[in-house]
């Protein structure tokens, strides 16, 4: 039966953080464009609550699609999807072993690889490039030390090594996604130790990293959404993880009568689901050889010449 109105729910504990924000943006865009019903549910941070929250959503059979984001929800999701086999869940940002679910998988390691490559090449230029010292090191600030973040770091490190093997990568973790002050201090510590470019994958904590780059007048790289505006002149670029594109395309299919079915959709460099965007104010300053090399790398990733190991 063709649906007159599509109803969508999304559940996560991280709607306020970069990637979550981009998902919410995509959902809202879909709402405006297609007039869908939309419900956002914030799980909070208590593991005990998750399962009931899923059940509350699934029970009414009211939602055509339920988008789920956040690895801590996986256990509850698996249980509830077994209980409600007809309910279609879309798990964002990973693939589980349940074949009945829909997965939107992102190749964040690809974008991070590009980010690492760019950062290390610029760092390798030394004082040729403004604000770069001769420390030959770049930095990384993670939120919590968890697999997804490790995957970002892995791509970043591999990219750096690939493009400029003698540039060192210093990585630190804030242990929290919610303490921007700590993010700022960590970044300043990295800058102080000679890392001139710091990549943040730390939600609001990372916001502190961006602001620190302005304070220290060094470089930062944003994540998930376009962060060039947070510290103009100090942000090299952003590794975009286009959650908005993912949810928007899925909903568009659904609305178009093309029901979303179980399986994995991969959002990577090739599909534009992951992308490295150099900030407009920085782009003109980047030496031609770096730009060329970067394009080569992107091509290498696209045609499979460059293989990036995923972190377990």
């Amino acid at each position, binding site marked *: 039966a063709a649906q007159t109105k599509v109803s969508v729910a999304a559940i996560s504990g991280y709607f306020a953080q970069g990637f979550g924000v981009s998902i919410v943006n995509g959902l809202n865009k879909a709402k405006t464009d297609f007039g869908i019903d939309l419900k956002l549910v914030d799980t909070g941070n208590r593991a005990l609550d998750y399962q009931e929250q899923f059940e509350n959503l699934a029970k009414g059979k009211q939602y055509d699609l339920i988008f789920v984001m956040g690895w801590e929800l996986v256990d509850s999701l698996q249980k509830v999807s077994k209980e409600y086999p007809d309910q279609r869940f879309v798990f964002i940002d990973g693939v589980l072993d349940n074949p009945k679910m829909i997965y939107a998988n992102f190749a964040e390691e690809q974008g991070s690889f590009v980010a690492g490559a760019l950062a290390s090449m610029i760092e390798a230029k030394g004082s040729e490039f403004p604000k770069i010292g001769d420390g030959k090191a770049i930095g990384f600030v993670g939120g919590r*030390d968890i697999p997804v973040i490790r995957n970002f770091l892995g791509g970043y490190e591999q990219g750096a090594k690939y493009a400029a093997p003698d540039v060192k990568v*210093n990585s630190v973790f804030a242990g929290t996604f919610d303490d921007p002050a700590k993010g700022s*201090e960590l970044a300043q510590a990295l800058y102080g130790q*000679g890392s001139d470019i710091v990549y943040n994958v730390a939600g609001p904590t990372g916001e502190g990293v961006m602001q620190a780059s302005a304070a220290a007048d060094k470089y930062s790289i944003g994540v998930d959404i376009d962060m060039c505006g947070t510290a103009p002149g100090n942000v090299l670029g952003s590794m975009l993880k286009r959650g908005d594109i993912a949810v928007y395309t899925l909903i568009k299919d659904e609305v178009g009568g093309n029901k979303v079915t179980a399986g994995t959709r991969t959002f990577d460099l090739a599909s534009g689901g992951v992308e490295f965007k150099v900030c407009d104010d920085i782009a003109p300053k980047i030496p031609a050889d770096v730009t060329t090399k970067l394009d080569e790398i992107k091509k290498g990733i696209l045609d499979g010449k460059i293989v990036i190991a995923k972190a377990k």
Partner: protein
Amino acid sequence: MEILDKLINVALIAATLRTTAPILLVALGGSFTTKAGIFNIGLEGQMLAGAFFAVIGSIWTGSAFAGVACGVAAALAFALAFAVLVVTFRANEVVVGLALNILAGGMTISLMKAIFGTRGSIVGHGIVGLPKVQIPGAQALLGSWAPLVSGFTPIVYVAFIAVPLLVLFYNRTRLGLYIRVVGEKPEAAEALGISITRVRYIASLLCGLLAGLAGAHLSLGYITMFTENMSSGRGFMAVAILIFSNGDPLKVLAGCLLFGFADAFSLRLQTFGFPSYLVLTVPYVVALTALFALSYRARPKIIKETLASMQKLLSVDRNSAPVDKNPQ
């Protein structure tokens, strides 16, 4: 050596000053209540409310300083609630303090969701951060040491200048003296017509003032955004410091510098491959260790005092006192 250079340098000291400032402000605020004889565990909540409303105020008015004023006003409201319950109703200060902390946490999140549609954090939205003060001539005079005195937001200077001001306040002003008296010997204050209630209210509000500044500094100075629970236990650290400093401004400063340093230093340790989660416990471990060590040290002091008093006594008393049997 190279490692040491990398660890301990001007940047580390500057970082220490930055990490110290918010704890210092809130702890100095707590100094008022501590000196007035109130155990104020609600600092965390006052700071959080200050941070949130500073951001709201800044967005609303487009001015950082108006934002700070909003943050301070919110913290004052919390301080007033604390004072009404604890001073007037004489409710248990731990209960009230904890409840106000919980209230601050829940309220900021609820309001965030009501105003911005999502919880989590407030970034952008036109928040105006505090400007950084560049001290003229600092660079020329101090060279590479300039980052130690220049380039902080105004509230950082306020925090450090507040220390000598508070010393002066407690020693040389009437209100400061009354706060001390009310905390140390309320009967004395009462007998002299000093209103205990009034002094405790004033102390609570002064505390709210500085806690609010500390919060505003977190969200408009230190960085320019608000996140859920962004005070991250700094208020509790301050309470720990207050307990073993007894609220004396100089000791508070020393304690805060210790934690600021532990914080800044531990962040740097991570780059040497220590596991992040363990390194992150360092400030808390330092706080606890200091708390325990200083309460342990209270002992030898008693012995020393006793020896002194015995000596004093012996000089007038011909009978010599016998050797201690149960040295306590």
